[in-house]
Every structure is written in C-alpha cells, then in structure tokens.
C-alpha cells in the first residue's frame, strides 16, 4: 500500500505524528517543520501521480500543508495526521484537475503529459509499460474517475481508504474505478 500507511517515524525514533501535532497546535514552529519534512516527499509523490505533472507538485504540496496547518485544531485523531493530510491532497488535486480539464477542453492548455517523466529511469520494463498504459490515456478521464483509478491502480490503496479520501461511498468508488477502466480499455486487467 502506498502513501496512507507511511509510518509516523520511519526509524522508530523521534516524536510521533501525534506528539508533533500537539506541539504544532501549541504554536511550535519546529514541530510544523518536522511534520512537513516527514511527509513532504510522500505528499509530493502523491501529488505527482495524481496530476501526472511535476509542475503541479509544488503548488499542491504547499497548498495542502497550508490547509492542514490552518485546520490542525480540527483534527480529531492526531495520530491519523498523514491519512488526513493525504485526504486534503486528494481534494486539492481534484480541484486542480477539474480546472485543468476545463481549460484543456477549451483549447487553452495543451501541455502534454511527459510519459518518460512519470516512470523513473530505474523502473523495470513491466512497470514502465503499465504506467504508460495508464498515464498515456488518463487525460481523457474526468477527475472523479481519474483520482480513484490512480489511488487504486498506482497507489495500490484499498477501496475503503479511497472512499475515505475521496468522500464517496465504497460502492461509488468501485463503480468509478470500473468506469475509468472501461473508458481506458483497462477492464481486462481489473481485479475481481
């Protein structure tokens, strides 16, 4: 599974996310920076895979952390900081994709997805093929279908996690993934 299960402390050392959240709420800037540094790469990776463009990553990372820090007081379970943060990223990405799709449809924005960029140079051939298969056609999907598809097929998240991140029911998530796969002709590889 991907981003949603990033451990709070990869090495087991250092304060937990919950401790950092509590300190951040108390106005400790170091704690905020620690939270940022702990999760920024995962957030950037998720933003990259959702949007498919490196140029969108910085905006999404910055906006997501800004929103998270503004709303930290409302987080019920501080230990769930990362899942909550990734939900924010997904919602911001959804907005960005909708806006981008509208502009593209109007013929204004035509920056092509760089498929060579999506798959890292160290990726095995079968992974490159699969990523290209998905990202090569993903632009035709609306955000409501694209995001569940990426969360499922690229991030490898469970349906329940996707439902929580997107604010939809599990049934809706399943339907959207199926619809996205059908649209992209990926149906034959769909999990049953």
């Amino acid at each position, binding site marked *: *599974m*991907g*981003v949603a299960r990033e451990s709070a402390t990869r090495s087991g050392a250092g304060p937990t996310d919950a401790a950092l959240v509590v300190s951040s709420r108390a106005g400790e*800037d170091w704690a*905020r*920076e620690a939270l*940022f*540094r702990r999760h*920024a*790469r995962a957030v*950037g*990776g998720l933003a*990259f*895979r959702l949007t498919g463009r*490196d*140029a969108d*990553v*910085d*905006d999404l*990372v*910055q*906006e997501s952390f*800004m*929103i998270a*820090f503004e*709303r930290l007081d*409302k987080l019920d379970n501080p230990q769930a900081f990362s899942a909550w943060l990734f939900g*924010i990223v997904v*919602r*911001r990405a959804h*907005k*960005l994709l909708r*806006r*981008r799709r*509208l*502009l593209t449809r*109007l*013929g*204004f*924005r035509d920056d092509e997805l760089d498929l060579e960029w999506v*798959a*890292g140079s*160290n*990726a*095995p051939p079968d*992974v*490159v093929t*699969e*990523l290209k298969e*998905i990202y090569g056609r993903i632009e035709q999907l609306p955000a409501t279908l694209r995001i569940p598809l990426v969360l499922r*097929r*690229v*991030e*490898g998240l469970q349906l329940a996690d996707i439902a929580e991140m997107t*604010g939809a*029911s599990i049934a809706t998530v399943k*339907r959207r993934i*199926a*619809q996205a796969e059908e649209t992209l002709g990926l149906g034959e590889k769909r*999990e049953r």
Partner: protein
Amino acid sequence: MNDDRLSKFARPRIDDARLARQWSVISRGRRARSGAWMLAFAAAAVVIACFVTWRLARQTPVVVAARANVTELASDQTGSTLVLADGSHITIGPSSRLLVRETSATETRVELVAGRADFDVKHDPARAFVVVAKGVTVVDTGTRFHVEYTSPTEVRVSVSEGSVRVERAQGAPSSLIAGESWTSGPAPVETAADAGETAEVPHDAGAAPPRADDSFARFSAIADSDPAAAFEVFGVSGYPRAIGRATPKQLFELADAARLSDHPAQAADAFDALRSRHRADPRAGLAALQLARLREDRLHDPAGAEAALRDAIALAPDATLREDAEARRVGVLEKMNDKAGCTEARDAYLAKYPSGIHRAKVEKSCGGR
C-alpha cells in the same frame, strides 16, 4: 495489481533544495498561487478569446474587467455589438453593462447589469444560453429576444423570434413566443455584494430583500476541506433558508457538505432545489441523480428516487450520467416491486447500451431475462 509497486517508480524529483523552497513558502504563511493565478488568468483569457469574438460591426464594447470566470463589458453612449464564438449576436444598448459569466462547454451565461441588450441566439441543444437580470432568468430555446431594465428594479423581456423561458426563483416559469413580452414588476433594491456569482434570488414584491452577509463565504472557504464544519455554518435549522437564497453553485456545495457530514435530508433538499429551480444549469442532471441516490440509499424512499431518476435522465448533459441513471432506475423499480416498469426499463437499457458498463447487473434485474 494491488500493491504500491507502481507508486515506488513514479516519483517526482524532490531534493533538499526543493523541500526548502516549499517550506519557505509554507512557513511564511502564504500559499504559492503561481499555478492557480496562471489558470485564473488563463480562464479569463479563454472567456475572452473563445467565447467573445469581437467584430467591429458598429462599436466594440469595452472590457471593463476580466476575472477567472467573468468578463465584464460596457458599451459607450451609442451602443455596441459583439459576436460570440457560436455565432450568436449580442447588441448592447447605450450606456449598458453586462457580464459574460460561468461560461462552460454546456452553457453560456450572460448577466445584464444595467441598460438593455438584444440577443440573437444561435440555438444549440447541447449548449444552453441563459440571460440573467435582477433575479430573472431567461433561458433561450432558439430565438431573438430583448432584455431591458425599464427601471432600476424592473426587467422587461420581449421576444421577436422563436421562444424563451423566463424563470424566477419562486413561481412557475413563463414561456414567451414571438411577439410576446413579460415584465417582472418592481423589485427591492439588491444589497448583496457580488461575491463572484450573483444569487438568483426572487425579487417579487413582498419578498424579503437579500441580506448581505459572509455566511456563504465562510461556508465555501471550508466546504472542501471540512464538510462537517461547513455544514455547521448554517446548521440544520439554517439550511432551508440557505438553500432558499443559494446560487446553483452554492446549492451543490450545500448538498455536498450535508451529504458528507451525514445529513442526507438536507443534502436531498439542496439537490432538489438545484434540479427544480435551475433546470438549465449544467449541474441539474447530476443533482437529480444525487438526489435519487440519497432517496434510495439513505432516505429509503424508492418512489421519490424513481421520480428523481426520471428527471436525471431528462436533464443529464452527458451520456455517462444518463446511462448511470437509467441503470439505477431499473434497480429502483425492482425495489418498488413494479415488475412491468422494471422490465420495460431493463429492456430499454439493454437495447440502448448493448455494451453498457451496467449491463451484467441490469440483465439480472426484474427476475432476469
């Protein structure tokens, strides 16, 4: 596949310098909006470049301001003419102002702010042409018509060719055909500040004037990130009033916030208001479908769901949404034990979508084929 194999190899290059730049922006408490601003300006440019193609027929209207989704135009003392990309003509009267707003692939929306304008609309069934003036909504159904402020609070619509439908937030819509005209009657002075979208609130005599407050601004600011908190901006008791004065966009936000915060009845009310009050809005079809889902899944009202699904099928702007609605309707009719209706709907779906994504499920409905 169901692991994170792909995500491991699809990563951006994030080095320490990049992290430092990101943190610098975050720690200063300022969102990096370069991309967003670029998009906003781009959207404004698109509105101008794609939908408003100037022709120097007589005088060219002046672009007063352009925001993300709104272009404001004004004419001089002799009037102006502009031609939209679809071939429709708008002749703006002397000293008049209008906004081209909320333009999308399925709708052109123009708001007459002052003065008068003649519209010669190239009818496109896939694209609604809507004129709004002081709470009066004129929906083109293929026509040439005129909208005018006869006083600061009164709007007159007259049709010289074809037909239009005139809607207000309250009361039944009126249809006008060539040679007919309609006057709104005096209305209270509008006080709500333009917060990016003008509320289509009723201005009937006796109705309370809209009150300017920042509830919707507060609501919209957090609706995405915290639906439960957004819902509490109005609360259960305040939702009916909020629904009553919301724009189509706000209705959708109200519905989503209620839905996501586990208030299905309020969500259903907001979707219902959107699909019944703003039938020309491109979101109306989706609102009807969402309403049907809520009625079926959360409110246990299959008959109400079925009615909403029929509406969704009629209003749906795209085939995917329509197909979903038609498939769901088969299931609802089955729940209602309407054997004949279910069979008819099932057979219609299978004939219409021989390789539809819901085919397998629909085939098994109503006792199977």
